[in-house]
């Protein structure tokens, strides 16, 4: 009787399990870890934390109303938030650093295109009478405070009716009155708060939706399997427990009937993917891990149905549904990832959303703004300075147009474009303007071809690893061999027993070490590593992490330290090392807010450090009038104090009396006011000492190489590493395609390659590598084509991460042996033909669970042993 009353609560518990089973990983962002306390030397990081972004105020400190701010951008957002009584923003999530919110200058001008009705429609604007709604993706959403602020957008403008932010999709849906506020203003409000929306067509956003659909389907299958497993278990208990015989005889037919129905449901719905995947792999001539699972499920089902049909027993329906439930939990664990980050990467993000179409190449023809997706071949497109080319164009007219092909070729020097030349989609126009005839549409462009090719080669990556494949083949052959032996042994004496033994072997032998222990261990490892600064896309990435044998570093920038302050110094007009004058200081800080030239940023960081303790009032108040970057030459800054040039010696011109030496490992940035040279910064790029140590550690286990787009001279900084590690191969002047071919060659030679890069301009190569590790530096809001993310400061821990992965995989092998022991016990019962349903019902889940528990415990132990020296990233303290 008691079992009846257990139905309901038990079912509810199992139904709600998927949500509670998976503990939600803590929420941080890649950006937030960059300025977390880890990785910086003590003493260097003593400034107060900014009240708005929680970043350390390394340079200037603005103090308003008892709060400290690191920059004017943060102060502006604080003022905006406090003016609208939304200061709860700062109380909700106090522990998280929101460094991604640090904004230099808000550019809202390019949102103006949103007011064109066609563009707005293309972006997914839905109008209903006086109301309109739009969904915008804001990658800067990283914590609960962000959600709070974005849910209260209506406070900032009365015409915004309501807003709703979604953490999982990093999107905000806004309802507004189009007669009160324009769409461009809505986007502007978001940008001003530090959440600039991405301008993407909904199709690009929808790519993430397919992943959601898959995870929803898995969740449903899991729920149904849990429901069926728990109910079948309850229905089987009376028979196992040997209650009143008479009672059982009356009830058993009903119980069996219900069990059969539930089991058919669970096999037909929950276990269906195992069949479809097996079939798919068989057609490609491959054996996947799904095959033995599908075989075990089929055997369990048919043997149980046969037993019930011939009334020889009650069947193994409980074992069957329990097995499927456990397998699905394992599968669910495998999809675990770090929720604070989104890893999607679309080609569309690199191409513009809108473009200017002109009817003729004359100046007087007014361009019309069109969606790139509606572009047709043969149309004329006008591209202005700072814009990205939407399609492969044939240049019809060019006015001083210089384009930067960095994304396509890796060449960062800009090239002057002549009329009649062909230019590629994805290139950026640095200066001037051009009108081009559309040769190839974005989908057929050279960039898209490169992208597709890389995707094709990456297909093999998502499927199972070679190790798993070898195991499956071995497993299937052994299992079938034992089953046939057992059957042939009994065949002569007892046909029934022979069939029993044959099916029992297939039922008991489950590759649970591979299908359960590994997913649980890797799921565990994903969250353990996230706490230590390495963010993995999924548990599968962790499995691949353990198999690496070659590491390719993509850029020298990760190994050198541009921002290192002792590598930069100021020389005055006489060519002597001295303090930086106030005028230059204010000029640099002014220019760096508007321009992100690497040399400027380095100079700016240097100034922040050495100006600490100095009187801020000594800074000259400069007002920026205009700033222009001439790539490969320098920057022209026009202010109310005259025209300044920052860049190379020839660029700045003027008379120079001092001595100018350019060392091999450094570069010179000259600052000139009108025709007078004020002096120059000498910027050296010393190798990071911790990187040297890291490379040395890695070289003992891995084959290392550097493949960089830099010239031989630029890569000369690698000298010390090459001397230390003679086996290091360095490849210069590598275009993305060269890198891709190089990586592809390594992979085809049977290597497992880790590619370490910045993830932005090496999509193809990153996608081809076994694992692409993107190194994020401050302020990156991009979702790179990476399997894993690490901050530049945590990169030094790479040897620890890799050792952890390797030793964890060894530990999983231990649990794999345990499962073999269980399989041996189960098989010995099975071959003797005496596997009772009750034994199976207890034995099968028990063995699986103990294997999983062992794998998880061993993983945690390894983490404690190997990762405890790394500072915890998730517990960033405030002030």
């Amino acid at each position: 009787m008691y079992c009846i009353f257990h139905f309901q609560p038990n079912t509810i518990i199992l139904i709600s399990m998927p949500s509670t089973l998976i503990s939600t990983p803590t929420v941080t962002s890649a950006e937030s870890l960059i300025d977390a306390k880890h990785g910086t030397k003590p003493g260097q990081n003593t400034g107060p934390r900014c009240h708005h972004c929680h970043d350390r105020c390394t340079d200037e400190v603005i103090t308003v109303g008892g709060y400290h701010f690191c920059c004017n951008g943060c102060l502006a957002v604080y003022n905006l938030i406090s003016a609208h009584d939304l200061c709860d923003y700062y109380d909700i999530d106090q522990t998280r650093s929101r460094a991604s919110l640090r904004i230099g200058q808000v550019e809202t001008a390019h949102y103006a295109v949103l007011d064109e009705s066609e563009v707005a429609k293309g972006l997914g604007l839905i109008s209903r009478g006086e109301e309109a709604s739009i969904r915008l993706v804001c990658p800067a959403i990283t914590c609960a405070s962000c959600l709070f602020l974005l849910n209260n957008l209506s406070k900032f403008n009365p015409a915004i009716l309501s807003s709703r932010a979604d953490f999982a999709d990093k999107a905000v849906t806004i309802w507004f009155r189009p007669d009160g506020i324009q769409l461009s203003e809505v986007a502007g409000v978001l940008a001003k708060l530090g959440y600039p929306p991405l301008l993407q067509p909904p199709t690009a956003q929808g790519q993430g939706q397919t992943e959601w659909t898959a995870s929803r389907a898995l969740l449903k299958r899991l729920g149904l399997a849990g429901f069926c497993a728990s109910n079948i278990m309850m229905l089987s208990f009376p028979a196992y427990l040997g209650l009143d015989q008479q009672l059982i005889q009356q009830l058993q037919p009903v119980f069996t009937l219900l069990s059969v129905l539930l089991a058919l449901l669970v096999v037909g719905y929950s276990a269906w993917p195992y069949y479809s995947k097996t079939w798919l792999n068989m057609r490609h001539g491959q054996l996947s891990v799904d095959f033995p699972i599908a075989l075990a499920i089929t055997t369990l089902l048919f043997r149980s149905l046969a037993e019930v049909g011939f009334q020889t027993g009650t069947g193994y329906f409980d074992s069957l549904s329990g097995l499927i439930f456990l397998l699905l939990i394992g599968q669910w664990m495998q999809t675990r990832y770090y929720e604070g980050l989104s890893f999607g990467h679309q080609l569309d993000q690199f191409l513009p959303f809108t473009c200017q179409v002109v009817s003729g190449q004359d100046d007087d023809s007014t361009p019309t703004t069109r969606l790139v997706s509606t572009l047709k071949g043969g149309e004329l497109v006008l591209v202005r300075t700072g814009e990205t080319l939407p399609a492969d164009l044939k240049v019809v007219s060019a006015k001083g147009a210089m384009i930067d092909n960095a994304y396509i070729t890796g060449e960062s020097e800009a090239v002057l474009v002549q009329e009649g030349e062909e230019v590629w989609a994805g290139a950026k126009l640095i200066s001037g303007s051009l009108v081009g005839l559309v040769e190839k549409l974005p989908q057929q462009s050279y960039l898209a071809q490169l992208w597709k090719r890389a995707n094709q080669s990456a297909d093999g990556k998502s499927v199972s690893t070679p190790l798993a494949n070898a195991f499956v083949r071995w497993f299937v052959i052994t299992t079938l061999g034992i089953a046939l032996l057992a059957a042939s042994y009994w065949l002569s004496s007892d046909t029934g027993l022979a069939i029993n033994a044959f099916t029992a072997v297939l039922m008991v032998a489950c590759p649970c070490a591979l299908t359960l222990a590994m997913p649980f261990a890797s799921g565990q490892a994903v969250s353990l590593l996230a706490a230590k600064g390495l963010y993995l896309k999924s548990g599968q990435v962790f499995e691949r992490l353990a198999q690496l044998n070659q590491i390719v570093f993509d850029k020298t920038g990760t190994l050198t330290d541009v921002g290192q302050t002792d590598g930069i110094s100021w020389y005055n007009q006489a060519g002597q090392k001295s303090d930086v004058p106030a005028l230059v200081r204010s000029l640099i800080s002014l220019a760096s807010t508007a321009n992100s030239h690497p040399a400027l940023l380095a100079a700016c960081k240097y100034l922040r450090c050495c100006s600490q303790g100095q009187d801020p009032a000594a800074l000259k108040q400069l007002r920026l009038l205009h700033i222009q970057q001439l790539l490969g030459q320098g920057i022209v800054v026009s202010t109310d104090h005259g025209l300044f040039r920052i860049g190379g010696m020839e660029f700045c011109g003027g008379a120079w009396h001092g001595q100018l030496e350019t060392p091999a490992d450094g570069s010179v940035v000259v600052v000139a006011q009108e025709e007078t040279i004020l002096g120059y910064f000498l910027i050296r790029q010393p190798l990071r000492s911790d990187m040297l140590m890291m490379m040395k550690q890695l070289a003992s286990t891995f084959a290392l190489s550097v493949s960089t787009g830099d010239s031989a001279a630029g890569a000369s900084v690698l000298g010390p590493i090459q001397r230390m590690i003679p086996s290091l191969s360095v490849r210069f002047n590598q275009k993305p395609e060269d890198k891709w071919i190089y990586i592809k060659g390594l992979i085809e030679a049977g290597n497992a390659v880790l590619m370490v890069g910045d993830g932005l301009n090496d999509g193809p190569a990153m996608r081809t590598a076994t694992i692409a590790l993107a190194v994020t530096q401050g302020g990156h809001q991009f979702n790179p084509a990476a399997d894993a993310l690490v901050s530049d400061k945590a990169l030094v821990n790479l040897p620890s991460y890799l050792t952890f992965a390797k030793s964890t995989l060894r530990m999983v092998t231990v649990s794999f042996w345990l499962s073999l022991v269980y399989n041996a016990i189960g098989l010995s019962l099975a071959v003797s033909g005496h596997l009772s349903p009750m034994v199976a019902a207890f034995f099968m889940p028990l063995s699986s669970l103990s294997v999983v528990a062992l794998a998880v415990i061993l993983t945690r132990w390894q983490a404690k042993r190997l990762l405890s020296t790394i500072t915890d990233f998730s517990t960033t303290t405030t002030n």
Partner: protein
Amino acid sequence: MEAMIILILISLTVAVGFLIAFLRIAGSGQFEDMISPAVRMLGDDTPPPPAQTETNQQ
């Protein structure tokens, strides 16, 4: 023992009801975003009421 069978059927019916509810919820994506709804709920109460009236008056 018909009572027992009826009870089992009733309990199963109730449980199936919960199962259907779960499948619908999972299908609508409620388990994907475990963070935003909680924050949204907090947000409704926390802003001080004067701020709202002020906005309405504008």
